[in-house]
């Protein structure tokens, strides 16, 4: 009995060891490798899955349609993090030394924080589209972080501007009560400094109502909402927390059209189960959804029609799926931009991709050519601005689909800039580092 189990154990260890050897022996030329950290299991899976599918499908499509980037084939490997920081770090360590590794997209705020400490030594850029560290917009302090298209500070700023406009001017917010119902983690807490700043400026009363992760239990939070009856509720949730919040709002009788979610609380999985109950609920939108854009048509044509799609075909083009496609497009465009400087048809190193990401210039014409016309706003990054674009729209759920209910709103530079500068300076001081020099910006 015991001998048999010993033999089994030895066999298991041997199998594991051999797999470690095989996975580390990927030495192939002319291939740009995209590590894909994802979570297809756990409480955040409903939102993690379409996101991951979009990223993978875009890679497959570029390989099938264009044969890669200027002849450089694209490869990828997914690694399941389950949204847990330690698993994310393990995935990062596993994939970071693959040949041709381009860029990491950690897909979780906690993992982003941990990797921010690690990427400068490993020289791999970190793309955190619409999440991560807000102060990382300051590229002179955060050389390797790219919170492209928006951070939680810009998101919160846009929401306040939108609410102000609806009320007939930001000065009308005086004396109003705005509650922030947030996921009790760095992700949920990020917008607080900006909201406090805005509350001070306009004289509204900011209430902070935390919800313990993962957000299934929200009874006490909504009891607070019921007691204080805020004029508006900002929802900073992710995964199962969003649909639960909407159901609780329905049960509490809180009007859904007074609720505004961040862009991570404005996708199909958040409202689908609530259906009619979520009617009128608003959320920020970084991108459109639907299958009309050319890039989505291309994905359907080159990937799904050939039976190589990653997820179900009818989910192609959903909000988070499209966001995954955008993230992957920006990563690939960064590589393409780097190739323009460092040599077309070559495999770029992490450092070179970082330069490409810092010098992205995607105007409307380029976006149209890529098939992203109307999907997102033009974006251009620089050494001092690692975000590229701060605009977002507000969308409203009409009971069966999302509809845009505002124009593009730009986050207010006047407020953000000093806060980002101060935050980045504090970060640098804590780490005993200095700002990048002008020469470093050229490299």
């Amino acid at each position: 009995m015991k001998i048999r189990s010993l033999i089994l154990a030895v066999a298991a260890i041997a199998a594991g060891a051999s797999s470690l050897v095989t996975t580390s022996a990927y030495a192939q030329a002319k291939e740009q490798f995209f590590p894909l950290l994802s979570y297809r299991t756990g409480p955040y899976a409903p939102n993690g899955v379409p996101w991951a599918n979009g990223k993978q499908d875009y890679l497959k499509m570029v390989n099938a349609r264009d044969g890669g980037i200027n002849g450089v084939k694209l490869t990828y490997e997914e690694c399941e993090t389950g949204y847990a920081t330690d698993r994310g770090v393990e995935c990062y360590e596993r994939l970071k030394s693959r040949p041709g590794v381009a860029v990491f997209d950690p897909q979780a705020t906690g993992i982003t924080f941990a990797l921010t400490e690690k990427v400068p030594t490993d020289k791999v850029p970190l793309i955190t589209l619409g999440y991560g560290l807000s102060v990382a917009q300051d590229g002179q302090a955060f050389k390797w972080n790219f919170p492209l298209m928006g951070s939680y500070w810009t998101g919160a700023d846009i929401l306040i501007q939108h609410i102000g406009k609806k009320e007939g001017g930001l000065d009308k917010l005086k004396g109003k009560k705005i509650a922030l119902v947030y996921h009790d983690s760095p992700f949920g807490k990020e917008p607080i400094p900006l909201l406090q700043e805005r509350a001070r400026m306009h004289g509204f009363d900011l209430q902070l109502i935390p919800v313990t992760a993962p957000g299934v239990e929200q009874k006490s939070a909504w009891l607070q909402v019921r007691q204080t009856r805020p004029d508006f509720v900002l929802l900073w949730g992710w995964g199962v927390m969003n649909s639960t919040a909407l159901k609780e709002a329905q049960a509490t009788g809180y009007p859904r059209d007074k609720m505004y979610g961040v862009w991570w609380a404005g996708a199909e999985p958040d409202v689908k189960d609530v259906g009619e109950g979520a009617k009128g609920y608003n959320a920020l939108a970084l991108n459109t959804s639907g299958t009309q854009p050319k890039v989505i048509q291309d994905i359907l044509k080159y990937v799904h029609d050939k039976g190589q799609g990653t997820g179900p075909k009818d989910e192609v083009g959903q909000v988070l799926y499209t966001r995954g496609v955008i993230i992957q497009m920006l990563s690939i465009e960064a590589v393409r931009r780097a190739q323009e400087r460092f040599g077309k048809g070559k495999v770029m190193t992490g450092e070179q991709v970082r330069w490409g990401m810092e010098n992205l210039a995607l105007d409307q014409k380029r976006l149209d050519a890529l098939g992203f016309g109307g999907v997102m706003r033009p974006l251009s990054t620089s050494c001092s601005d690692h975000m590229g674009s701060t605009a977002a729209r507000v969308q409203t759920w009409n009971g069966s689909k999302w509809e845009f209910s505002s124009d593009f709103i730009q986050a207010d530079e006047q407020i953000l800039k000093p806060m980002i500068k101060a935050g980045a300076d504090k970060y640098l001081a804590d780490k005993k580092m200095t700002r990048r020099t002008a020469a470093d910006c050229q490299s």
Partner: protein
Amino acid sequence: MLYRENGQFKTTYRADQQIFPILQDRVFIGLFLLFAFAVVPLLASDYLFRAILIPFLIISLAALGVNILVGYCGQISLGSGAFMAVGAYGAYNFFVRIPGMPLIPALILGGLCATAFGILFGLPSLRVKGLYLAVATLAAQFFSDWMFLRIKWFTNDSPSGSISVSNLQVFGLPIDSAVSKYLLCLSLLVVIALLAKNLVRGAIGREWMAIRDMDVAAAVIGIRPMYAKLSAFAVSSFIIGMAGALWAFVHLGSWEPAAFSVEFSFRLLFMVIIGGLGSILGGFLGAAFITILPIVLSQALPAITRLFGYEMGTAGVSHAELMIFGGLIVWFLIVEPHGLAKLWSIGKQKLRLWPFPH
């Protein structure tokens, strides 16, 4: 034939009381330490260090601490994650608030914070035991979650609640390469494991075990339950706190309370149960089983299914990993309820008789 103690006579009490009375064991441990300190740093890859060895060493340390409380003293605790968190945040506060604070004293002070916290939450053990105590220690977990999320002072007023450390040094040597981190964790683990082993062999360890086996009988023969139980809580939470500080400082570098969630407490408890309650070795074996096996499975499963021409998706791997893992836990508990350490000692016993079993 090789593993035989014939002819090894002990003529002094000292010789009789050493940790490894058999010469072969001493040689094996010596060679093993030499291998860990000298050979591994030369051979292992960056991935092996950062993703497997360093987490394994730190979690072994935590499991060692849990084993002292649960395995030796019989006080079931579900608050281990909280003790780790207190160690990590305590060390962080000493590290950033006192200018020029060296790393090792900061880690030790973090451990001492955890000790105080552990004694505080060990007080219910004087009245309740078994499952009831487990529930009481669960309170420590929720309390620490609440404390580190809400009280801004602990996180140095970090707006997002996530904190990070950098510029780690020990005696002027920077701790930033994988090898230096590995050696730091390994040295601390060896020192603490040696101390713990001697502690459980001594009078205090006997008191803990007496309390574990039957507290009323222990009290009758003159063991003070309060002293024994609280000292077990103190020693155990000191070690767990040190492990928590290392986990945060050395492994993650930047962390939030979710890094020490209740799930961590459960995993630590499973580790000592699978590794072997009441055995120092059990902590190491359990930590290896719980931390390394999922990683090995997640890499081996796609490779194995690829052999059969079937591409396994990430989600499939993740689910299969959980199922295999759960199955193995059940299987182990049925086949060997005393854990992996017992298997090891059975193996040693068989080797002593080999090749002429009777």
